[in-house]
């Protein structure tokens, strides 16, 4: 489903403090995977995840999403691709503070133009899976960190994207909330078949994924 061939990424290309952030990455992610990009801090996990998520460009090599090359898209096309095909979960929850939990979860569906009824049903469905259905009318800042991150996951998963990219989703959570979140994400993966790719060096994430792609210094060292 996602295929990377010979992907290279430099920061400050050609300058004296050049960073070769991704070195010759070849990688395939299949539909329905529950995988992890793992490795020490600064090894390129975020850079690789951003490249897959069409958030950032690469300097050479190709990335395909279902046969479609995404490395050559324009800025606007990438924005729409992210909206329609990707779901994102970041380290901090990044919910819209003035919208209720329900509106936050439905936000991307709304942007994609789903009908209000469809959005409402779907929001309730994922809220139940993520055990936040009794918080739907609350504002995000009245929720605990763990609950807020589950709202962020719900928002990413609600519009049924092809893949969810989760960068350090447990970094701000304690162990109990981390385990709970990983369990729920695993259930989403199993019950809804969503493809999820993590970037993390957190032990709870390592414990629950099915595939670990180990990076070091910008290259894949173990798969």
């Amino acid at each position, binding site marked *: 489903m996602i295929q990377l061939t010979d992907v290279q990424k430099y920061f400050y290309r050609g300058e004296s403090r050049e960073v070769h952030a991704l070195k010759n990455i070849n990688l395939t992610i299949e539909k329905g995977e529950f995988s992890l990009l793992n490795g020490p801090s600064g090894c390129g996990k*975020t850079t690789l995840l*951003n490249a897959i998520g069409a*958030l*950032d460009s690469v300097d050479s090599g190709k990335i395909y999403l279902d046969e479609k090359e995404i490395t050559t898209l324009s800025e*606007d096309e990438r*924005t*729409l*691709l*992210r*909206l*329609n095909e*990707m*779901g*994102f979960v*970041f*380290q*901090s929850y*990044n919910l*819209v*503070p*003035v*919208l209720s939990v329900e*509106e936050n979860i439905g*936000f*991307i569906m*709304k*942007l994609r*133009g789903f009908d209000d009824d469809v959005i409402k049903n779907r929001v309730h469905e994922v809220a139940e899976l993520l055990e936040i259905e009794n918080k739907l009318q609350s504002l995000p800042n009245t929720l605990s960190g763990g609950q807020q991150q589950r709202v962020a996951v719900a*928002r*990413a998963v609600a519009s049924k994207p092809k893949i969810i990219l989760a*960068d*350090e989703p447990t*970094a701000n959570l304690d162990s109990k909330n981390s385990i709970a979140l990983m369990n729920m994400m695993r259930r989403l993966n199993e019950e809804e078949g969503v493809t999820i790719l993590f970037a993390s060096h957190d032990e709870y994430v390592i414990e629950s994924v099915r595939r670990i792609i180990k990076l070091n210094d910008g290259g894949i060292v173990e798969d």
Partner: protein
Amino acid sequence: MFRLILKLAWKNAFLRLSRTLLVVIMIAVSMSMMLSIQGIYDGMTSNLIDKTKRSDCGEISLYNSHYRLNKNLDNVIKDAKGIEASLNERPDVQAVVRRLSVDGLSATARKSAFSSVVGIELDDEIAFGRFDQFLVDGKLELGKRGALIGKELAKTLKVHVGSKVIFSTQDSSGEINAMALKIRGIMQTSMVLDRSALYVDRRHLERFLGVSDTVATQIAIRTESSTLQATLQKAYPQLSVMDFLELNPMLKQMQDMMHIFNSITFFIVILVVFIGILGVMYVSVLDRIREFGIMRAVGMEYKYIRREVLLEALFVGVVGYVVGAILGLLSLLYLHHYGLNLSQFSEGLASFGLDTVLYADISPIYFINTFLAILSASLLSVLLPLRKIKHLNPIEVIKAET
């Protein structure tokens, strides 16, 4: 989708309530002050114009074409009575008066001053311009030897109701003649007349000067027609038919000047509004720069974000406008009915023919113009904040969290 954006804009505008309120108050206060100043300025000019029209030249005045250069009794309108009668027949003429005026010297035992005696028909003047309302002291009556005097002239001559004044001038045969007048009332009309005029009964003056009762120096007309002047000029080619502004270039200048003052005040207020909204929007956007970055990251198109920020600025502007319009209207209504009392400056104002209490005009144009200007100011003020979002790289924002 639009509803979501509307909601975001509305909630964000009022999330930071104290900041938004501050700008709203700033807009409202400066706007209502501007409206009041505009109303007073306009009220001042229209008051002067109104008084000059009512007491002097109406919308249009007719003179012998030589009279305004050489004001002597050879240059009168010969058939004024006939012209007055035929003007009164016209449906586009609301009121007509004819006056006989002569320059000379007024004197008391101790003081003297150049002045004009104006022969009038009291009832006609009341119908023409509510002449009775100009009376500030004494009684509105003329009789055989009675006279009404302009307030400033009364001051110069140090006379009051009941005083005697001797007026001397050349009659139609060229002889210097004098008449004794008794002051019955004091009038406050327009600048020039207040300084120079003594009003007497027209018939009395005709006899004194030895002229026929058909002549006049001026025929003044009240009308709303804009074509009457041209029509009359064609009908009476031997006379000069002049409209209000030609006769009062000073008032025209004053009107233009007030217009410039108003424009400057308007511009300053709109600038204040612009800077206020710019400030609050800039800070608000900077505050939420992460939020916008995340929205871009998850795929929200820039045009929706732009729309949201625009709406937010509009909310602030429009709420400010509504509050300002209400405050401004209340203040204008007050100034319209009770006026602005400037009695401590009354000396200066009165010598300009102004009242010591100024009443504001109210015009819907004030509100329409301000609305359009505030709307434009709101829309322009988001350009700079929006640039911040447009050049935002979502990756940088996401990275900043770690």
